[in-house]
């Protein structure tokens, strides 16, 4: 009994040592991410899933904080990175210059086709949608009985709004949105830095802003997201985009993450980093531990 256990330990130790030696010269995965919290958490999720891969852990190189969608896309095309997180709507609008369809499935299929033509592949949707969210204070939503955006149109003439610059400029932003919902505010909405709109809303300086639907601050600042009941905003489902050459390495990792990250889970992870100031790697590890292998 004792002997067999000792032999088992010896063999296991040998296997691990061999594994470690093999991994040093083994396959390598270069993971990219854009320069905001959610992207970095998604990058860490993939990086740590790669380290935990059954069999030998993968060598991982992190190329995070890349400034913007086009930069990531070009890096991927040039083979400087193997994979990075993206959103179907963003890919269609910003990379392939198309109007993203409102239907999530159609958007994913369109993105897959466009990426295929560009020589790239995409994962199945990760499970959450990072779209624009029209945000108000929870207290105000309760007092005015607001649950969706069409109810906002009724009270908008008494409210003040502020939006980030991107929301004013995008085709799926303010002008189209105000037209679709017939919304007119008390005064023309102000343009300001996105990060400051959250503070302005929380400190009662404005009443309506447009944030990210997965922002951690929504819970922390007691804000409420109004439902986009006319489906004006296109789908922004999160996916990983990758080079076909990396597919064999990525397949088991993607298998583990696809469809498993809910909007609530992503929001909680973003809040852990942005509000509770935890390390993105620790947050990713905790999520992976909770996830069944």
């Amino acid at each position, binding site marked *: 009994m004792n002997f067999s256990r000792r032999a088992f330990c010896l063999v296991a130790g040998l296997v691990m040592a061999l594994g470690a030696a093999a991994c040093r010269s083994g396959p390598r995965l270069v993971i990219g991410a854009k320069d905001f919290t959610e992207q970095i958490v998604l990058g860490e999720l993939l990086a740590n899933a790669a380290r935990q891969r059954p069999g030998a852990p993968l060598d991982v190189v992190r190329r995070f904080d890349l400034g913007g969608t086009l930069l990531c896309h070009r890096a991927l095309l040039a083979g400087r990175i193997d994979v990075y997180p993206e959103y179907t709507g963003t890919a269609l609008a910003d990379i392939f210059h198309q109007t993203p369809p409102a239907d999530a499935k159609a958007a994913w299929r369109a993105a897959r086709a466009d990426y295929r033509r560009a020589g790239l592949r995409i994962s199945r949707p990760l499970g959450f949608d990072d779209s624009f969210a029209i945000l108000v204070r929870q207290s105000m939503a309760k007092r005015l009985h607001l649950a969706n955006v069409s109810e906002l149109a009724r009270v908008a003439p008494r409210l003040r709004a502020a939006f980030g610059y991107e929301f004013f400029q995008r085709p799926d932003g303010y002008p189209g949105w105000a037209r679709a919902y017939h919304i007119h505010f008390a005064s023309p909405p102000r343009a300001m830095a996105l990060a*400051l709109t959250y503070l302005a809303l929380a*400190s009662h*300086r404005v009443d309506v802003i447009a944030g990210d639907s997965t922002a951690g601050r929504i819970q922390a600042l007691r804000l409420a997201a109004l439902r986009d009941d006319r489906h004006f905003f296109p789908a922004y489902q999160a996916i990983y985009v990758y080079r076909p050459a990396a597919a064999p390495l990525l397949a088991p990792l993607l298998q583990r993450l696809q469809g498993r990250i809910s909007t609530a889970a992503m929001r909680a992870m973003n809040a852990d980093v942005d509000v509770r100031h935890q390390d993105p790697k620790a947050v990713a590890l905790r999520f992976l531990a909770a996830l069944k292998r």
Partner: protein
Amino acid sequence: MLGWLRFLLFHRRELLQLFAEHLGLVVLSTALAAAIGLPLGVWATRRRGVRRWALGAANIVQTIPSLALFGFLLPLPLIGGVGAPSAIVALVLYSLLPIMRGAYGGIVQVDAAVREAAIALGMTPRQRLLQVELPLALPAIFGGLRVAAVISVGTATIAAAIGAGGLGEFIFRGLATADNRLILAGAVPAALLALGVDGSLGALEAWLARRYKP
């Protein structure tokens, strides 16, 4: 280049409005900062406590990043909130240091012999300040004012982050859409404005120097 000029021409009305807003922010905040900073700078030459606290505070303010400063100002009543008031308060705070330093340094470096001569002539402290020290300190005072105004033109571009308008709006919009034409439509007029503001203050200094020759 020609394409960009056509782009400017297309946006000329907006450009003019933002330019006017920008100029307004700079002029108002520099004037307010001068009204606060010049007396404080002079007072600092008379009292050590004032020198230590006023210059120390202005030094610290200078190190606060503008977005963080806006974050602090947002919830405050009257001087804070969304729009021009917050932006002007921030610009005034950033302008105080060069203006106070200019006034303080200008008066301190007045030759002791000149000051003693003024005392010997029987001038009151008030006469001494207005007729001897301030005219001699004029170049240093204007040095501070010009630095403050030029920095203000640059800093005022960040006013667009808190909804106060100005040429920063073009820059922020350009950044949001990765449109270099928009970024330049904000940055180039701001640079020209900085040159213009510096030149005008230089002209004002020359005129004052001729008028109040010590």
